[in-house]
């Protein structure tokens, strides 16, 4: 394998001032975690504001790139040819050898961009650019120089111990390393939107846990398994997720019996938020995340969102709030949750859904309906929270 190491470029965390080292260390730790899944041993190190991943011995290139592409905080992954041989004449050979292997099709324009990190190196950068360019033109007559828009931008980096050559840049996922921004609790259903919402918030460096409301026999074991699978898929990006499975049947049936039918969904959602918030408080999450999107269904009109939101004291993050369905679908396809989200496991909760649910609920009316639950529902909520099952995903 030509490539034995990678230069990891990060974007936003470069701007974090005095806390910068915290972000870099978090990124290194996330990279190490991601590479644990890959065959091979890796050394991940930080040197003068750059992060290098170096494989020690045999490793799987494709798997490594795939793993790195899932680490938030990485802007670019640059596979590098690296040598400890700093001899200038031989460097010219290495450059030709590199181009020969990476670009079998010679009909391209190029530019050399040398950087002398070790200023003791005898040849200045400008000189290197000229010399190496000349060698390339001599060796590959079809190649042309283009200093403005080259097809191949070959970077040559001379460091104290090694010389690096790289020209390929593989885009990373961007964002910030998970763990640099606290923890939040995702309300995860089996649908398309909530895994995307979790992914998006995790991308900002937030660790996530999740809560799923299970209503047997109205929801099936397969529906539950699907949510576990989705949590695992999201965890490929976010790192381990604790999935809290809460049995919601008793609460749901109670609301169904006591409250007006068309208000059922709204009241249920208010209880889901309350329970999610309670579990979040207990487990160190500081915010809630939902996959709500304005107007998608009756419970996601602005009026409904306001009524649902009213029970929360924590901030509620709704990253897809202004996204069209197709935009959410596009992300879910890209992150690999779509296929699982659309599995058709029957969700018999539709039995409880009114044919004409309220779309413009009034907080006053909903509160009055909820008063009728007072005295009985609290215990059910306690039981549901205490009896929850926690599954570690990822």
């Amino acid at each position, binding site marked *: 394998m030509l490539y034995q190491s990678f230069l990891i470029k990060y974007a936003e965390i470069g701007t974090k001032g005095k806390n910068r080292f915290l972000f870099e260390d978090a990124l290194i730790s996330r990279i190490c975690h991601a590479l644990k899944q890959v065959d091979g041993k890796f050394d991940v190190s930080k040197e003068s504001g750059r992060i290098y991943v170096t494989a020690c011995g045999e490793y799987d290139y494709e798997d490594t790139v795939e793993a790195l592409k899932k680490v938030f905080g990485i802007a670019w992954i640059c596979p590098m040819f690296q040598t400890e041989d700093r001899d200038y004449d031989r460097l010219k050979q290495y450059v030709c050898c590199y181009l020969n292997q990476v670009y079998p099709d010679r009909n391209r324009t190029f530019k050399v961009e040398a950087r002398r990190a070790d200023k003791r190196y005898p040849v200045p950068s400008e000189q290197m650019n000229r010399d190496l360019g000349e060698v390339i033109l001599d060796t590959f007559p079809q190649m042309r120089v283009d200093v403005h828009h080259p097809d191949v931008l070959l970077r040559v980096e001379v460091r104290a111990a090694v010389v690096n050559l790289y020209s390929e840049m593989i885009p990373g996922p961007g964002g910030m390393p998970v763990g640099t921004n606290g923890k939040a609790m995702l309300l995860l259903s089996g649908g398309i939107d909530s895994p995307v919402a979790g992914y998006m918030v995790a991308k900002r460096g937030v660790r996530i846990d999740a809560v799923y409301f299970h209503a*047997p*026999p*109205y*929801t*099936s*074991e397969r529906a539950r398994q699907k949510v576990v699978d989705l949590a695992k898929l999201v965890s490929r990006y976010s790192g381990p997720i604790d999935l809290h499975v809460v049995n919601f049947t008793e609460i749901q*049936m109670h609301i*169904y*019996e006591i409250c007006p*039918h068309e208000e059922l969904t709204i009241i249920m959602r208010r209880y889901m938020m309350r329970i999610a918030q309670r579990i979040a408080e207990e487990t160190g999450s500081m915010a809630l995340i939902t996959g709500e999107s304005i107007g998608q269904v009756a419970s996601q009109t602005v009026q409904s969102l306001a009524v649902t939101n009213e029970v929360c004291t924590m901030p509620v993050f709704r990253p897809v709030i202004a996204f069209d369905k197709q935009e959410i679908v596009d992300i879910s396809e890209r992150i690999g949750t779509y296929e699982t989200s659309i599995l*058709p496991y*029957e969700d*018999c909760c*539709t*039995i*409880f*859904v*009114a*044919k004409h649910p309220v779309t413009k609920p009034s907080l006053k009316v909903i509160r009055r309906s909820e008063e009728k639950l007072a005295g009985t529902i609290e215990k059910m909520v306690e039981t549901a929270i205490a009896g929850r099952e926690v599954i570690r995903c990822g």
Partner: protein
Amino acid sequence: MEAYFDNSATTKVFDSVRDIVVKTMTEDYANPSAKHSKGVEAENYIKEARSVIARSLRVQEKEIVFTSGGSESNNMALIGGAMANRRAGNHIISSNIEHPSVYNPLGYLEEQGYEVTYLPVDRQGHIDLSELEAAVRPDTVLVSVMYVNNEVGTVEPVEEISKIVKRKNPAALFHVDAIQAYGKYEIRPKRQGIDLLSVSAHKLHGPKGVGFLYIDEKVKIKPLIYGGGQQRNLRSGTENVPGIAGMGEAVREMFTDHQKKIDGLYELKEYAESRLRKLEGVTLNNPPGREGAPQIVSASFEGVRSEVLLHALEEKGIYVSSGSACSSHHPGLSGTLKGVGVRPDLLDCTLRFSFGLFNTKEEVDYAAETLKQLLPLLRRFRRR
């Protein structure tokens, strides 16, 4: 308590089946085509299974071809049968209550230019014989019907069907999907005029992934799988020795004291029917008692969604199916239930209880008691 009433989906294997499967995987594991003695040992398991199965149908051993199960047998019979007799015509007859492993190959054949007539059924699920007679044409190459319907347990009059078909067109092949019937009924292809018969092992306490197709010696079939030429070129691929040996053992066991076993199933079925009839708002869709197959009871529960009831029963350790488990992956209402005239409001409220030799009366009691408790509870929560 656990009560597994989903035996028409699949069954638990007999202990003796498990033993022979383990033995052929761990001791007598050679390739049956190998020239050495260990290969001969393995081949003997196949010979033995073939002989037991041939005897159970009173047919010749060479008329049995081992397959990967019911779906392959049906595909082979329909596609292989139609293709091999292409010159005789391109018309096929079947019914509208067939299993997807018959429907979908027929759909494929339609794409290939065949014309398929789907016969309707009456309220009991029987094919209308006069419609059949009218449908048979000189260019009819194949007629395919199921012996026992997998959703309601109706038994089709295969012998009469064969007579009608052969009288009008002696060259037409008659295929019977006997996947729910074999092991329950004494099937005699020669006497009943069956040319092709599909069977799956795992419906009769045998292993999954194995089955066979009976092909009358006079019938020409085009293979679906080409390769090393095993099974007289009809079905290439190293024989699934553990599966085949397991199937042979299951067949041997099934047909030992056969009548007693079937009587036991009918007793269980009739007992379940009587217990279910006592419950409020329950309609039975299967032909009662001995009028239908011994293992299938189909019941509709007014005002309760079948999936909800299925999951509620599952919480109590009772396993049943809604519609046919094989097709439950495709949500949509059962064609068979509609075909036999189940009331539209009950289509989505129907469960199948299917019995096997390991079930007991106590399990039926337990299920009946559980239903008695669950139904009123679940009916309180219907869609308003």
